[in-house]
């Protein structure tokens, strides 16, 4: 580990800390319909959208219509992308003349982008037309993130309202999230990326002759606009296969910095928005503190493991850290940082090959996802994820002070526990069960490139990533029907089966009245709450995966130490 390495992480995190408050406060104003500096430009557009879609922005929804709208919107968006991918060959903006996608790949891809996962069983530069990239994948990159943010806001309303029957209007929240939050930042960010050298054009691919005399095709296309929302929307689906490791998507150290900040910007800022909603900033900061602690611990471990390198390589006389599968222009620290951040958040963009990390270095991204991606997390999903953990924490620990547990004055009773535990069940069920099947099913093993614990890690990583809607991969897996179909199912449940209980939770909490805090109330703004929250995330969330992890990266690490590799 080096000072420069640590400084890189410090700069990224410092920038995020600086932006959390202004962006968070801005979002609070936007979602409550207050005037912001962009209103003169955007308010007419917003009104136009409502008029066009016949939305009455003043009409609020109960949790059921809200959930129904989310699901219906997701379904329609999914069908739209599925059809688009199946007929892209007949549509314009396809200079390379790519064909239509096969049904199972189109299903997997459409689900993947609809659920904000962006798991990619294809190479963008050799599969997707520019129209599919922009109007298909790009659309989802915005709206899936917007839907996540909308649900987070609905949950904040649930937590802050008293004896209310509504939690907001999904269409309004979605419109505002895209229009006021994602689009403006994306416009500025993509211009910065273009300045750094990311292409933005409709040209066909350029064929060049390399120094060795071979012909090489260099991809082109509207990359910068896609690239920025890939990070900002915690989507992660690269324009090209190499994702942010490629010189096109992520050419410089500065572009790397922009991308890293964008990945955790919204997730971090939403904690501040939350503080605004509940009129107690400390409530937001404690969540931010718990996230920060887990982030720092994860980065430290990943960086240490990668900097320590591989003992087998050391035995060959090559000293130093593990540089396999890393871009030399980023180096160990920036690669470990990117891997930590992309899995803390539900992004899935990568600037290095996670599969080539050391066993422990690869364990960290996997573990981050298995925690439920609540460390900043995906846009909106990170916030509502940590809230159901907070509710479980309050319930277990709050009893210890001798009262029916309360969170923000709302009594946590049967229904709240039921919904929180329902949400908490999703990740273990939909990651471990399919991983169990895949690890003995011939079709699951058929396309596995590695054997032993490392092969198992690849399976486990894939489902951990898909259920959490991350989208990063350990690689080593090639798509076949089993992977396409099961992956689609897992991604779908990983999104919808958490969203619905969360929206129901928002409704249940909104309906409650608030109990005034007394000296006998369990406070959720103290350092001890941060410790307890982290404890519950680790023990209830991640420890479930400990047996599986032990058979994957942990035993691989132990065997590496003995000189065995896979």
């Amino acid at each position, binding site marked *: 580990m080096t000072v420069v390495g640590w400084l890189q992480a410090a700069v990224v995190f410092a920038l995020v800390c600086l932006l959390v408050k202004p962006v968070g406060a801005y979002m609070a104003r936007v979602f409550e319909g207050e005037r912001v500096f962009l209103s003169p430009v955007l308010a007419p557009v917003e009104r136009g959208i409502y008029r066009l879609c016949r939305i009455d922005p003043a009409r609020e929804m109960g949790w059921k219509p809200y959930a129904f709208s989310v699901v219906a919107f997701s379904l329609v968006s999914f069908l739209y992308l599925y059809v688009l991918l199946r007929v892209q060959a007949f549509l314009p903006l396809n200079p390379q003349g790519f064909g239509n996608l096969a049904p199972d790949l189109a299903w997997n891809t459409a689900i993947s982008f609809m659920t904000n996962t962006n798991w990619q069983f294809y190479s963008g530069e050799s599969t997707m037309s520019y129209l599919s990239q922009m109007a298909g994948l790009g659309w989802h990159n915005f709206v899936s993130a917007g839907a996540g943010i909308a649900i987070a806001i609905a949950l904040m309303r649930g937590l802050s309202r008293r004896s209310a029957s509504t939690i907001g209007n999904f269409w309004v929240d979605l419109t505002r999230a895209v229009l006021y939050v994602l689009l403006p930042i994306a416009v500025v960010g993509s211009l910065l990326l273009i300045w750094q050298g990311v292409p933005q054009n409709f040209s066909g691919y350029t064929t060049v002759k390399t120094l060795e005399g071979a012909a090489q095709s260099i991809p082109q296309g509207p990359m910068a606009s896609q690239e920025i929302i890939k990070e900002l929307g915690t989507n992660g689906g690269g324009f090209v296969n190499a994702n942010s490791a490629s010189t096109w998507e992520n050419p410089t150290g500065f572009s790397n910095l922009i991308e890293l900040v964008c990945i955790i910007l919204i997730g971090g800022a939403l904690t501040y928005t939350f503080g605004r909603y509940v009129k107690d900033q400390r409530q937001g900061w404690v969540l931010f503190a718990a996230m920060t602690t887990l982030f720092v611990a994860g980065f430290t471990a990943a960086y240490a493991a990668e900097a320590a390198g591989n003992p087998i390589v050391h035995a060959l006389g090559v000293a130093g850290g593990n540089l396999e599968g890393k871009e030399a222009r980023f180096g160990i620290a920036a690669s470990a940082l990117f891997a930590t951040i992309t899995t803390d958040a539900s992004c899935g963009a990568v600037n290095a090959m996670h599969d080539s990390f050391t066993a422990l270095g690869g364990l960290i991204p996997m573990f981050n996802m298995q925690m439920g991606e609540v460390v900043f997390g995906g846009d909106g999903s990170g916030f509502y994820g940590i809230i159901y953990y907070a509710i479980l924490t309050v319930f277990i620990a709050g*009893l210890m002070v001798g009262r*029916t547990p309360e969170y923000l004055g709302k009594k946590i*009773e049967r229904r709240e526990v039921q919904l929180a535990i329902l949400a908490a069940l999703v990740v273990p069920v939909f990651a471990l069960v399919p991983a169990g*099947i895949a690890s003995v099913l011939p079709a699951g093993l058929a396309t596995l490139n590695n054997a032993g614990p490392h092969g198992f890690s690849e399976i486990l990583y894939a489902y951990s990533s898909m259920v959490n809607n991350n989208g990063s991969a350990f690689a080593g897996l090639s798509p076949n029907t089993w992977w396409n179909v099961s992956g689609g199912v897992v991604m779908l449940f990983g999104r919808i089966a958490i969203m619905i209980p969360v929206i129901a939770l928002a409704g249940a909490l909104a309906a409650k009245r608030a109990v005034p805090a*007394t000296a006998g109330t369990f406070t959720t703004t103290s350092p001890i709450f941060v410790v307890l929250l982290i404890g519950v995330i680790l023990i209830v969330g991640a*420890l479930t995966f400990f047996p599986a992890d032990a*058979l994957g990266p942990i*035993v691989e690490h132990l065997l590496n130490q003995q000189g065995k590799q896979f």
Partner: protein
Amino acid sequence: MVSRSRSLFDRSILFPAIRESFVKLNPRVQLRNPVMFIVEVGALVSIFYAFRDVRNGQASFDIAISAWLWFTVLFANFAEAMAEGRGKAQAEYLRRTKTDTIARRLVDGREERVPATQLRRGDRVVAEVNDLIATDGEIVEGAATVDESAITGESAPVIREAGGDRSSVTGGTRVLSDRIVYVVSANPGESFLDRMISLVEGAQRQKTPNEIALSILLAGLTIIFVIAVATLAPFSIYAGATPSVVVLIALLVCLIPTTIGGLLSAIGIAGMDRVLQRNVLAMSGRAVEAAGDVDTLLLDKTGTITLGNRQATEIIFAPGADETIVYRSAYFASLADETPEGRSIVTLSLSKGAGDGSTVLPAGAVVVPFSAYTRMSGVDYTDGSQLRKGAPDAVRAWVSQNGGGKTDVLAAEVDRIARAGGTPLLLADRGRILGCIGLRDILKPNTRVRFDRLRAMGIRTVMITGDNPLTASAIAREAGVDDFLAEATPETKMTLIKREQGEGRLVAMTGDGTNDAPALAQADVGVAMNSGTQAAKEAGNMIDLDSDPTKLIEIVEVGKQLLMTRGSLTTFSIANDVAKYFAILPAMFVAAYPAMDALNIMRLNPHSAILSAIIFNALIIVALIPLALRGVPYRPRGAEAVLRENVLIYGLGGIIVPFIGIKAIDLILGVLHLTGAS
């Protein structure tokens, strides 16, 4: 009550509880508790595998695991049976009181002897000296002293009389003097005694809201662990290891929250039992739980904050009045006053020397009792002179009516006493004001300390009194309550409760009169005094058999302790999992991956590690039974301090203890050469 001082492991409870532990193995009983049901299923499956594994030499391991799983279930059953045991013993005693009472029923004025079981609501029954009251009723004729010790455990007899707030009689109590006629108010099976039996026995016990929520959490965690363990089977097949079903069962049982799962119902029953030991009958566990959540306590001034009634503390003479005459006048004016206030004036004036002459009223003197109309009492002598004492304005009016002189005598003193929260009385003869008597509330000892304690727990205290606001605020200040309701009527009390509840607070109160009934029903925790009316007792969700209003504070503490015990043991149970992973996983996979031994941080013998973890898991339930029954130690403090301490003990302790415990068990197994197969 009867068996208040039974020790925790009384033999008469212990042996039936052991028997009961086996009876409760019935899967239908276990099904109510999903966590323990899974353990029982695991134990059965392990036996099956033991038979199958006879040939390959694994049977002894299977049998050992199965045996300890059975113990785990038995220990949990035992905890529940122990908690139920006290109630059962008490119910047994009460049931004996109930048997073969013969009632004297009045039919058209004639008396007939019928068994108590034939009495119906509305029947009129006579009871005389030494008769048992057959069932609950309201006295309509007469008054009697009644021995209620069978119900309350209190041996001093109480007076019950027709009309007013002391008209109810309870089945199972005994008339000690006089004759009463009462109207039956409960059909067979619905009487107080019946309800009491079923409550202490726990027959009607339903899970409380918080218990249900916690059960859901535990069931959810159990599902998560079932998935985590079941998927280990294909994972280990991938790894080239043969998964043993019994080992997987052992891992599962270690991970699911068996400690809290096994003790949960015992904690709830014991909580109700602790209330019962304070001689309070809770109508439901829900009420006990709600007591822990109470935010506002409404406390009646009289009896809770102050010692009974006001007492005379000073007698001041008017300028020029003769000292002895003033004392004697105070004495005679109060001689016929039977109220506690009156008695206290007599006592005070006697102590000042009023009795130096004669303590007997002169012949022919007539006492004038207190009336609400005149607001005075006194004495008329045969010589036409009169003495009066009473409310200052009434006495002044009386003096000026009788052509007396100055009426503003002692005005400053009267004001002073009133401002300090006392009651000033004036004393006068026909022509002039003689003196002023100050009555004051005497605070119960340690009131301030008690209320400080409640405040530390985050509970607001509101004093309820019929006094005027001036008096009330003075007493409130002195006693250290947070707020007061002066000139309280049943209506204002009700309004206060609704206002507090409207702001999201839970309210507890005590009451005994019929006019308290609506408020008792409205309050979240309503404790009716056993001495009170039937209506009050039916409206409240708890009945204090000692009729002691200060009990409310203890009830709140029991409720808090109940919730704390649940939370602490849940935390402990979940925190235990960390060590169990490290005990079982290496042992499970060390054959497939010898490198896994690095995770064996306790350095357990791989052959006995799994058994050690299972034994620890079973024994910890037994070890925690006393804690579950007694509740975690409780001191009234702020939430922050309580949380810090409990997190350290049960959270951090819950992580550390099993590391030590499993290692110790493993060492013992090693010494005994019980390290399982091969």
